[in-house]
């Protein structure tokens, strides 16, 4: 604090745009983008048509649901929680929407989609309230609701399928409908990314998420309601799960109890590969997007290069471990920087 003694160290007036750029280039997001390009490049050496814009757009479209779900999961993970019930939520809402459509085909698709979002949000709110009001660990809560949601699907459907011929044509065609050259499904993913960017970076809720995940105790002293923030994250994750419920059953034109079984782990995997810290407080929208794209690319590329889809699981698993190992390494590097700066500071 001795004024004047170390003037060069004091806060520079510019906001460090150059250093921010340099940091971005070295960042995990940039690394991940590079990995994605390398992956596509590798596949293209065996199957050049894979790198064509049309095929890449198809891969994006195929990854759209994963992207939207990963963004929702990201909100939850940022707040130092986890939602394992997303795929079950998706399946339950998908079943209800499909059954509604089969029973009352006159209900407009927009109404059905809104209903899906609202239902999903309500299911998410159950998770959120249990975490907030009863203070139960999120992994336990969502493991419980995951099982309950799947059970309810069985109850409402009697274990029966809703097949393509029972769904109205409009119901099935919406995700496929092209708009400005891209299917609506892709547009929804793009809108979700844009929405998440604004939500996470520009709203008080987004700021609160990072604060709650980064240091819950300090967040309390800052006037942030930790429980409420987490609950809202679960509601948001539920809402996108519900929306994806409609998208999933309409895209694949079938609804049954085991729709998207195990998909919650793909969603978590996308987040982890995308560099979103399971410990909360660290992660970017770009990371979640690329994590999902990475998994989607692997899934689409393997058949092209004639690798058995069974390998897909092993490769996805390897990608998760490599990503986490890389993240852990970069955190350690950060740790050293902290030590160093602690010495030179003050």
């Amino acid at each position, binding site marked *: 604090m001795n004024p004047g003694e170390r003037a060069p160290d004091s806060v520079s007036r510019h906001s460090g745009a150059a250093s921010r750029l340099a940091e971005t280039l070295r960042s995990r997001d940039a690394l991940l983008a590079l990995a994605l390009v390398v992956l596509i490049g590798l596949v293209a050496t065996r199957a050049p048509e894979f790198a064509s814009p049309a095929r890449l757009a198809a891969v994006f479209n195929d990854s759209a649901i994963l992207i939207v779900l990963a963004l929702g999961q990201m909100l939850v993970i940022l707040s130092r929680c986890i939602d394992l019930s997303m795929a079950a939520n998706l399946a339950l809402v998908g079943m209800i929407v499909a059954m509604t459509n089969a029973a009352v085909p006159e209900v407009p698709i927009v109404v059905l989609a809104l209903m899906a979002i609202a239902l999903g949000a309500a299911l998410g709110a159950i998770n959120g309230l249990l975490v907030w009001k009863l203070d139960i660990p999120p992994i336990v809560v969502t493991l419980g609701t995951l099982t309950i949601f799947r059970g309810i699907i069985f109850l409402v459907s009697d274990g029966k399928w809703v097949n393509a011929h029972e769904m109205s044509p409009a119901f099935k065609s919406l995700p496929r409908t092209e708009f400005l050259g891209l299917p609506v499904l892709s547009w929804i993913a793009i809108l979700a990314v844009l929405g998440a960017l604004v939500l996470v970076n520009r709203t008080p809720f987004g700021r609160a998420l*990072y604060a709650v995940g980064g240091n819950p105790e300090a967040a309390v002293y800052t006037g942030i309601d930790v429980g409420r923030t987490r609950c809202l994250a679960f509601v948001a994750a539920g809402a996108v799960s519900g929306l994806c419920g409609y998208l999933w059953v309409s895209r694949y034109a079938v609804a049954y109890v085991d729709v998207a079984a195990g998909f919650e782990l793909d969603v978590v995997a996308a987040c982890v590969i995308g560099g979103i810290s399971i410990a909360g407080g660290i992660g970017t929208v770009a990371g979640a997007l690329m994590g999902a794209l990475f998994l989607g690319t692997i899934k689409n590329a393997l058949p092209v290069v004639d690798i058995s889809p069974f390998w897909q699981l092993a490769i996805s698993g390897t990608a998760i471990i490599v990503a986490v190992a890389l993240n852990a390494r970069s955190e350690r590097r950060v740790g050293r920087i902290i030590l160093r700066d602690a010495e030179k500071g003050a």
Partner: protein
Amino acid sequence: MNDDSPVLTLDGITKLFPGVRALAGVSLALRAGEVTALVGENGAGKSTIVKVLTGIYRPDGGEIRIDGKAVRFSSPQDAAAAGITAIHQETVLFDDLSVAENIWIGHAPRGRFGLIDRARAEREASEILERIGAGSLDPRARLRDLGIASKHLVAIARALSIEARVVVMDEPTAALSRKEIEELYELVERLKAEGRAILFISHKFDEIFRIADRYVVFRDGEPAGEGRIAEVEEGELVEMMVGRPMGDIFPPPSGELGEEILSVRGYSHPTEFDDISFTLRRGEILGFYGLVGAGRSELMQSLFGITRPSAGTVTLEGRPLVIRSPADAIAEGIVYVPEDRGGQGAITGLPIFRNVALPSMSRTARHGLVKTSEELALAREYTERLELRAASLDQRVGQLSGGNQQKVVIAKWLATRPSVIVLDEPTKGIDIGSKAAVHAFMRELASAGLAVVMVSSEIPEVLGMSDRVVVMREGRHAAMFDRGEATPASLVRAAAGIADAREAA
């Protein structure tokens, strides 16, 4: 126990980090049976030298000698094998293991088949504990169930179990009560008597003069003085540390106090405090003194909405207030800067500007969207006022030094433009130069019309800064003094409940 040949010598140690020289040719000689105090402001290089000593950092220049022979530590294990051990401010022990397990972890006595000989481990642990006057500790007790002072004893027992010749104590008394500190001093004496060389790092001058034989002063990573404690005075040490004479440590009071702004009546909590009343005026610094556990922090946390009171009223500027959450308190202009600024203050993973702007989002947001430019402007305004040293406002708070993190936390609260600010132990754990700056700054806040509540356990600070002092004891109001009426003795008497304490209010 030859006093003249040092056990451990550091000679001209230099440690470079990219862009900064943390240590520039410092030397240190530790002798058996001697306590050497290492003093210096935050950032003077004290922690760096500890890390060099314990093998965490490798020096870029200079030599480490043990018994006159040059050694090289390439890992903490090497340093431990050479008989160097460190006891840190926060003990690095395992809460879920027993006392004996903690003492022996890594080098437990082995029995048949290489399995740990538990009976022997516990027996020998008991012997060591006995030696340091902690025979009452059960070696089988779980560490979690022990108090902080007992944990320190376990850490010291562990140091003895590896037959350490050099014991480094890094601010060991920071979290201890008076009585526990006394016990620690006795222990240091005992370690001395056993012929161990001790390096004692502390901010507290009374303890340096109490237990050290020699002193070494670092300033900005360079040697700034050394010698025998008996031949130096406090003022000289301070001068060596800060490189300039310290004048009047406390800023003068502002004189005129404004109108009453806050009035607390009959504030009670089921377990922490009972029937507390006080008033606060603009421009005033109201000190809260008491022993650790007297309920001062709990009272302030309750006023800030962290916990709910069971009875009592709060009136701000004549309006009765109901505070249900910290958000309510902040909205009313009451802020609380917690004592544990690392744990409760900063979000270390976020950049400086986001930390500063966090409680002020209602002002930096337009139509529900936060404007980064507004956040940066806010952060710049308040960090400049506090003379924060950082590369840029984008820097993550975790990369700053402790003192600068503290400034970020204070800037965060000032940015909410409060009318009442509660500072809980505002200078705890910070060096003497920064202390003076914090004091001056508190006075400046008061002069600017803020009402300041200062919870402090440091008597000189309470006496030097407060316009009035409230003393709490066991959750109750024990005494109230006006400026000039309180003496160290009267504060201690009131806090400890010794008769004759002046009752006023």
